[in-house]
């Protein structure tokens, strides 16, 4: 047991938790916005994959991590634009379109990877980190928590920013109305289509950013299917968060913790079958769902296309 709790191990463990949580946090915050506005965005996994691929490809070509992240967000938004066109503007069934987009993007990114990188398997160099002054001097927590890529700080800042957006702005009111009673929003003179499209595009940007983080920071390379269900986990986290951004952070950290402990246990040489250990994050999600799923309190119009005049 003693060997398990060395400083080096703890630093690796905490930064592992953050690395695993961050894509979930970004994607979860995005999904939460869509769900608030009444769109169940099952294309999230596809948006994250495209974000991961675009982010990696651009960072590799330009050598710029900033451009890589911007490309990741743009890639996610491009998929989200399809989702918005099909499910918000037309509007078609969100579940069917969402699943189709995820499956389609899994294929598209795998194909692109096969064509471009399957022979060379390029890697990105290690990313620049920003150590926060003073805070990074704290033992264990300093090097693990406060020495991170700027995207981490951005994602953490998004939590209070989203909470403020929902609580104190007209955009927040419009999103809530679009998800709870779109007809009321329409009568108030605000376009339900525009409100929902905005939410879906924001989801795409955040999901794409999360994917780019996975590829560029987490792994340093792109492999097909690399998101491995993170998009779906983010959807579950967003559903359980009942519209509260802080709860998304909590959920993402919980799953990140389970993922990280998987690695940690393997490193520590625990004699547990790997397959069992790898199931831990999914088991956590299922446990959380059984415990809290019934009280998810989702918006009334979630998943329902809005047609003006139909009751």
């Amino acid at each position, binding site marked *: 047991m003693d060997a398990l709790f060395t400083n080096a191990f703890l630093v690796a463990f905490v930064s592992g938790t953050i690395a695993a949580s961050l894509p979930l946090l970004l994607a979860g915050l995005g999904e939460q916005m869509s769900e608030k506005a009444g769109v169940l965005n099952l294309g999230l996994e596809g948006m994250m994959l495209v974000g991961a691929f675009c982010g990696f490809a651009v960072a590799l070509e330009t050598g710029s991590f900033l451009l890589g992240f911007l490309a990741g967000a743009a890639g996610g938004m491009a998929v989200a634009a399809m989702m918005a066109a099909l499910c918000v503007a037309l509007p078609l069934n969100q579940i069917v379109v969402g699943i189709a987009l995820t499956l389609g993007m899994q294929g598209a990114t795998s194909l692109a990877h096969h064509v471009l990188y399957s022979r060379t398997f390029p890697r990105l160099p290690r990313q620049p980190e920003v150590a926060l002054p003073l805070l990074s001097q704290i033992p264990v927590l300093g090097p693990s928590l406060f020495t991170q890529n700027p995207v981490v700080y951005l994602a953490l800042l998004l939590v209070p920013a989203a909470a403020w957006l929902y609580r104190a*702005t007209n955009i927040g*009111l419009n999103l809530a109305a679009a998800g709870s*009673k779109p007809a009321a929003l329409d009568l108030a003179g605000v376009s339900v289509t525009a409100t929902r499209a905005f939410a879906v595009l924001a989801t795409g940007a955040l999901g794409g950013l999360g994917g780019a983080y996975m590829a560029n920071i987490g792994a340093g390379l792109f492999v097909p299917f690399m998101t491995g269900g993170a998009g779906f986990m983010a959807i579950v986290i967003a559903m359980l968060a009942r519209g509260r951004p802080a709860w998304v952070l909590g959920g993402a950290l919980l799953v990140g913790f389970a993922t990280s402990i998987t690695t940690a246990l393997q490193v520590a040489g625990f004699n547990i079958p790997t397959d069992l250990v790898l199931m831990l994050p999914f088991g956590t999600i299922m446990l959380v769902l059984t415990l809290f799923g019934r009280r998810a309190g989702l918006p009334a119009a979630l998943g329902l296309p809005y047609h003006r005049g139909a009751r």
Partner: protein
Amino acid sequence: MPEGTGAATTGADRGLDVPLVRLSGITKRFPGVLANDEVSFDIRPGEVHALLGENGAGKSTLIAILSGVLQPDSGRIEVNGRPVRIASPRDAIRLGIGTVYQHSTLVPTLSVVQNLMLGQRWWRPLGRAAALARLAELSALLGVRVDPDATAGSLSLGQQQQVEIVKALWRGERVLVLDEPTSMLTPQGVEELGQVMARLAARGFGIVFVSHKLQEVLAFGHRVTVLKLGRKAGEIPPARLSALSPAEATAEILDLMFGRGAADPEAPRRRASTIRADDAPLLEVEHLSAGEGAVQDVSFTLRPGEILGIAGVDGNGQKQLAEALAGQLRAEAGRIRFAGRDITRLPVARRHALGLRYLTDDRLGEGTVGGFAIGTNLVMKRVGEPPFWAGGFERPARIAAHARELIGRYDVRTPGPEVPIATLSGGNIQKALFGRELSGEPRLLLANKPTYGLDVANIRAARDRISAAAAAGVACILISTELDELLELSDRIAVMYRGRIAGIVGNGPDAERAIGRLMVGGA
């Protein structure tokens, strides 16, 4: 156009002769229907203009044109004497016309003040302080009290409507259109609404009050316009209305609605009792409790051919009592005996098969599957049973024949049994449901608010249907919030108050007063 020139006290007679809004010659066609035919309608400051007519008379179309939801095919709209076009709800608001729609437009998950702030440009700050001030100002004007931070969905229907009125006047609108505002309210809520309308009229607002209830129109309206089959059947100006006695006014309006000499469909009359004295009780309810306190210690008996009315302000456990009797809600204590047999633990289907039929008040929600054909809905409670199913397979010809028979017998107006039931009007859906519950061998009809939301003709049809059932020996429980309905049909009337039966009153000349006392919790 008749003009008020007498000595009445409304704004129109004080010389404010330019109407706030004037509709003239409004015509609107829908495929196959002339919904509005050359209708003219004025809204004057300081006046409650009641718009009366049966379902389908064109009231809703006229309101939709006034609030910008629909565009007229021809006709002229003037606001403050200037011709205008109301192309959208937003235009209507800009022109100072605020509308309270029949269906709630509040977002149930948002607070009252958030609902009121909804609809600003997205880049603007919320301006919560200003909104709170405006809310306080309008609540004072209306004489109501609203908690700005209460979630809209947690308010009573009456309070929600007050918020809707505040919302309709939010941007300084001077015209308030209320589309059937009393249909969802308790008697007390209706009373409060009447006071709010009177206050607004006294401050010079122009109010349109749509209703199909004569008594409300007489109680709250200054001017009355009657629509019939899309045409304006007539208008009674304030001077004339205030000169008439209530009975004369009633007679005059009925003449306009139904032609000369029609009897008041709302006049109290009592059905002759059809109980056979020697019959044993069909239903015995002993100390029944259900719904976590919603129904507490309820006991009564019911004989074949008897109608037991259940009165009470809405929400005092009537619905839970009905569901417990129908088997949809588990009895937590007590016993239910039906035809001498203990049915307390029997499931819904078994009770139905025994002849206990529940006519729900939620016609579209639990009464029907809207997208299914009428024929299918009519056998919905007998799925799998012969003769409509054989060996697990549906027999469409039998189902359709059964449907055609019930459609004919119960006068359901529909193109055919294959039409989705949700396309029918409320009155016709109710007729179909009566057909379904009374087919086979009914022994007890449990009717929950059977005339709620129906127009005069369909209310009549539903009430006749219940008395006919009782005359045929079916025991009936009639849950209603309409006192005159209970007085017309019931042999005895039980009053529910906070989940208990506060008392059971034999129907007779003194019943009304006794029920009134029990309804508000008096002994």
